[in-house]
């Protein structure tokens, strides 16, 4: 308790460094988000791409690539690395051990982003954000993405070295929960990204440079999804850090269980990687036995999310009852809904519950064939990365930007409008997408041009584009609020300000068992499980690989 009360003052230089991450993140979001509604409108018969033709953005699939890369990869990665940097500094109450290393990481990411953006805008990388071979993009696209990943790794190394120094300075002290959770997120990401690194460096980049004649597309898929599924946990876990470690404080309570919170994060490290074949249930070239094993392990990774549901709701109920809430469910009304920081995260959590149920469906082996590559899938991940993650990041931004800049949030009531429009828009959009998927509508298709669309879909297509329009209003307003907050002249008066929210645990974290604060056993277990669940099939696909599928431009 005592240690968490003392305030650590983050240096101006470090605030600017974190702020630079947010600037790129929100910039990417503001551009990428424009293309989402354009796609929705196109599906419902309102093709606006002609208007963008003079800008060279009239191509549906170029726009879809921009939307996926900027929103799912850039907005997330830059926000996450920036947010976690601050979590490390404030959580450990010390500056980064090697600040230059972290700056090298950040600028590597920026260079990578620019390098990937040029071919995308030039139309030389309209391969969507999954870039499945043998669809070919410019070498600069692959190299740029590689640099973004490598840059995020370098920032992670900076975190590890900072943690090692803190351990030396604080022997016998349990690491703060938010710091442990930030480190687990980074470790998981570095482990997981190996798949995509191998895919790009051994196949895609050499093929794009003409060093090899072709690729093995199925091997590419297996390597991609080795990274692809844990990638969604890289997006999700920073939101969980806020839900567990900050939201209870913001709602006026405490973290219900430090022990269970740590256990959940360790289980995410352990189980988020060996589940990738659940994205390949419909694939040839992967035996059904491995698909089945990954299906079972995917139920395993649902377990820490169920733990999270309990702990977060219990923490919120404690806060609400302290605020005078009563009744079996009546306490929910006593939560501080008027605070946009809180309501963003509560609404994100509600949307994520629907996302979780859909996720169980996706993971359910043969049931997956009903929805594979249909509109259901983007319907699903707009509830996860575009809601649980994105709406939580909106909520975090409402205190983080004031914290970094020393300027009050511009029009907090409008921030509440952002949250509710995102919630309502996403409910309409994602419900329509799920239904369309069940009716057989394909995803990532310029559906307005498709000759096979039955009349039965039209009502749902309209609802979907209505949801998209509401989401466009929400995200536009968010970007305006973020910009007006950061670039206004007004500053906090003396005595005002925003504090970094750290929820105190009900039980002293020192009483959390040591095995929940040690990396080695969990890293070993993770490595063993990945080798067991992926090793034989990867070995088989590598030893039978034929690089005979020549690159083809879309």
């Amino acid at each position, binding site marked *: 308790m005592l240690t968490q009360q003392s305030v650590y003052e983050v240096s101006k230089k470090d605030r600017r460094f974190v702020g630079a991450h947010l600037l790129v993140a929100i910039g990417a979001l503001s551009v990428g988000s424009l293309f989402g509604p354009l796609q929705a409108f196109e599906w419902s018969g309102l093709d606006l791409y002609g208007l963008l033709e003079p800008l060279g953005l009239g*191509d549906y*699939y170029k726009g*879809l690539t921009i939307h996926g890369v900027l929103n799912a990869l850039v907005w997330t990665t830059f926000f996450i690395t920036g947010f976690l940097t601050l979590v490390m500094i404030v959580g450990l109450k010390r500056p980064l051990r090697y600040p230059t290393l972290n700056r090298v990481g950040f600028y590597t990411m920026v260079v990578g982003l620019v390098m990937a953006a040029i071919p995308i805008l030039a139309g030389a990388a309209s391969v969507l954000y999954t870039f*499945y071979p043998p*669809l070919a993009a410019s070498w600069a696209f692959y190299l740029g993405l590689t640099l973004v990943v490598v840059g995020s790794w370098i920032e992670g190394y900076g975190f590890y070295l900072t943690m090692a120094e803190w351990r030396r300075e604080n*022997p016998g002290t*349990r690491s703060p929960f938010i710091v442990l959770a930030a480190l687990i997120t980074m470790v998981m990401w570095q482990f997981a990204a190996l798949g995509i690194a191998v895919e790009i460096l051994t196949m895609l980049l050499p093929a794009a440079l003409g060093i090899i004649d072709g690729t093995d597309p*199925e091997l590419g*898929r297996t390597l991609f999804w080795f990274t692809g599924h844990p990638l969604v946990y890289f997006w999700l876990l920073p939101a969980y850090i806020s839900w567990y470690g900050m939201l209870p404080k913001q709602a006026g309570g405490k973290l*219900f*269980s430090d*022990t*269970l919170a740590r256990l959940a994060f360790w289980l995410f490290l352990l189980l988020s990687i060996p589940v990738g074949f659940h994205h390949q*249930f*419909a*694939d*040839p*070239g992967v035996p*059904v036995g491995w698909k*089945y094993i990954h*299906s*079972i392990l995917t*139920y*395993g990774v649902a*377990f820490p999310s*169920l*733990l999270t549901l*309990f*702990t977060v709701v*219990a923490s919120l109920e404690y806060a609400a009852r302290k605020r005078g809430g009563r009744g079996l469910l009546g306490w929910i009304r006593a939560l501080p809904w008027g605070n946009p920081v809180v309501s963003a995260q509560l609404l994100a959590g509600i949307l994520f519950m629907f996302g979780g149920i859909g996720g*169980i469906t996706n993971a*359910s*082996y*043969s*049931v*997956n*064939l*009903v929805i*594979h*590559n*249909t509109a259901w899938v983007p319907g699903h991940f707009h509830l996860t990365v575009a809601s649980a993650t994105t709406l939580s990041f909106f909520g975090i931004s409402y205190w983080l930007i004031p914290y970094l800049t020393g300027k009050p949030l511009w029009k907090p009531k409008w921030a509440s409008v952002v949250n509710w429009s995102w919630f309502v828009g996403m409910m309409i959009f994602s419900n329509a997408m799920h239904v369309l998927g069940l009716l*057989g509508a*394909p995803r*990532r*298709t*310029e*559906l*307005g*041009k*498709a*000759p*096979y669309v039955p009349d039965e879909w039209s009502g749902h297509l309209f609802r979907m584009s209505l949801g998209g329009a509401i989401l466009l209003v929400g995200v536009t307003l968010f970007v305006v609020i973020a910009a007006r907050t950061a670039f206004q002249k007004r500053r906090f008066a003396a005595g005002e300000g925003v504090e970094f929210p750290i929820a105190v645990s009900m039980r002293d974290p020192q*009483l959390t068992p*040591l095995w*929940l604060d040690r990396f080695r056993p969990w890293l070993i277990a993770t490595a063993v499980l990945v080798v067991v669940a992926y090793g034989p099939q990867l070995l088989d696909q590598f030893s*039978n690989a034929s690089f*005979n*599928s020549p690159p*083809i431009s*879309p």
Partner: protein
Amino acid sequence: MTETSHDEAASFEADPFEQRWIVVSLILLIAFMVTVTIAGFALGFQVPGAESRVDPRTVADSPPWNEPGLRDLGGGEYAAYVISRQYLFDPRTITVPVGSSVTFYLTSIDVQHGFLLQNTNVNMQVVPGEVSRLTVDFDEAGEFDYICNEFCGAGHAAMFGSVIVEADEGGA
């Protein structure tokens, strides 16, 4: 306090409600596992597996892929060999009588495609170098579109074909 005293006092402790929730969660997940296991292995709702490998550059030159289309295997069973390429399925239409059991074999000679047969459980990724296989029983007459549901390039939205299931003329 010293480190030792912390570690002696430290223990794994969960609230009684939390313990119950953990048990409920585990039962729920085990029920899901049992359900998909029974559906997949006892009732035969299966996903595509590792069928066979081909060379995408030459596959269309040799049997059976040099003559894509339907093969009557007798007894109401058929095999349909379908080649996918930017931006069409070959053949574009497949006609079978009602009551047929059709095994679809697909491969691609260029990029990845998808094969989603509307209103059935057939949904396959079509990957160059691999053969995808699934079987479906057509118990009702009608027209079933198969559409490409993996992005394959600029003309992707136009890529589809149809299975025409003809009613039994003699009356069933």
